């Protein structure tokens, strides 16, 4: 009996893995084939990008202030508070901005995609698209995944900007550093690889968040409970994967730096 239960669970796991593989592989097939849903892609870019701006701006600015404030005591012990701009820029550009942007958009956009597609699934709206000879995968999934993939890197650049401004406010208040002096130190500390690797990570994070939200929504079970589960598991799974990807990216970037 126990053996039967284990086999059944293993079966389910492999079926689920196969379904995920098919879902992701279908994206790379459909994204290049016409018809292209430009209008829907633009709508989704607006939803993901523009509508996330206020939240990203506020969070990024606060993170800049808090991070600067918390780093000061350690540096002041060595009389090195003048290194604060460099420390802030490296921390924000290399790790904080991509992660914070990904986590905020996973919460705001990932859950909304999961809930929206989940509710469309349970109210048969996806079936309605299919029977009217419209490809629901292309219209719903491809447009949303493209939007998150391209908007999250843009939002990440914006997060870098507002976080550095937050850091500047704190540094200026405590060390009376000028705006020019602060940003000269900030840009001296970062390299092209820092910006490039963060952008590359953000593309991957964006793809992951969009794909997870769409997958969970598209395969949600019947009923309103399924919609809630889809929204919730979209966020949890996307965040978990983002952290794993961050860890992997760190290893790869460190290896590149060591070359």
């Amino acid at each position, binding site marked *: 009996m126990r053996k039967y239960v284990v086999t059944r669970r293993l079966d389910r796991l492999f079926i689920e893995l196969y379904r995920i593989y098919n879902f992701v592989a279908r994206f790379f097939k459909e994204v290049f084939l016409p*018809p292209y849903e430009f209008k829907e892609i633009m709508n989704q870019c607006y939803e993901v990008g523009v509508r996330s701006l206020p939240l990203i701006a506020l969070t990024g600015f606060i993170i800049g202030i808090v991070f600067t404030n918390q780093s000061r005591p350690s540096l002041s012990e060595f009389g090195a508070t003048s290194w604060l701009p460099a420390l802030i820029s490296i921390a924000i550009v290399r790790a904080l901005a991509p992660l914070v942007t990904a986590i905020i958009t996973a919460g705001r956009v990932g859950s909304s995609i999961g809930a*929206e597609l989940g*509710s*469309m699934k349970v*109210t*048969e*709206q996806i*079936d*309605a*698209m*299919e*029977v*009217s*000879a*419209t490809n629901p995968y292309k219209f719903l999934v491809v447009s949303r995944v493209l939007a998150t993939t391209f908007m999250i890197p843009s939002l990440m650049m914006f997060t870098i900007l507002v976080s550095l401004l937050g850091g500047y406010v704190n540094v200026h208040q405590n060390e009376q550093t000028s705006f020019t002096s602060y940003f000269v130190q900030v840009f001296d500390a970062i390299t092209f690889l820092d910006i490039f690797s963060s952008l590359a990570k953000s593309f991957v994070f964006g793809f992951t968040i969009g794909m997870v939200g769409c997958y969970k929504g598209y395969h949600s079970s019947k009923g309103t409970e399924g919609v809630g589960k889809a929204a919730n598991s979209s966020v949890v799974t996307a965040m978990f994967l983002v952290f794993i990807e961050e860890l992997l990216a760190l290893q790869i970037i460190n290896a590149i730096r060591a070359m």
Partner: protein
Amino acid sequence: MKKASPNIDYNQKAISIKGLQKSFDEFDVLKGVDLDLYKGENLVVLGRSGTGKSVLIKIISGLLKPDEGYVNVLGQEVDKISPKELDKLRLKIGFSFQNSALYDSMTVRENLEFPLVRNSRNLTRKEIDNLVETVLDAVGLSQAINQMPSELSGGQRKRIGIARTLILRPEIMLYDEPTAGLDPITCIDINNLINEVQRRFNTSSIIITHDLTCARAVGDRIAMLLDGQFQHEGTFDEVFATDDERAQAFYNYNFID
């Protein structure tokens, strides 16, 4: 009782199904269904909840694949044609969903335009507007054109759902529980609309329901699905002129209790 439609052509079949079987896990839903729908005919499929009525029309529209059997729709076997051919066939099939399945994020106009602009990309703005106005007029809801689905009543949502399928001028209409959850007066309106669609657009229709008032009002022929197979078939009176307790229980629940 509905008078038989004069446009039925008993020499031409719109849908022909033989030996259709469908199971979900270990549960056999359809156990060898045979069914013919003639051109211009309204066929009502009656049956209890969970007997596979909706599964049947989802197989006809290609949303589900049959396990066994032959399903021919307008001369094409739905489970054997390519996805492109299936999309072309789907343009000739209108599917009215139980909960209307209107796109929540779009206005009524956008809901109606959605299948049109995706399948007839050469249409001008004026032609699209004319088609939208025509189908809205056909369902008697011209004034709702700029409303959101959430602002409509259950009956209005059903009508818009039907209008959205009519905009592609389908040859076959599939209605899934068209009167479920509606008040008796709205049910009469929907029944009249189904007959009007049959008359005006010359459609062949399958109407899935367990509402016998609806079945009597719209059905040229009734088929009763019991235990995964069609057990009784004919006019309304012929179907219920039987000693089969399962059919009688159905009749008694609707008209006596």
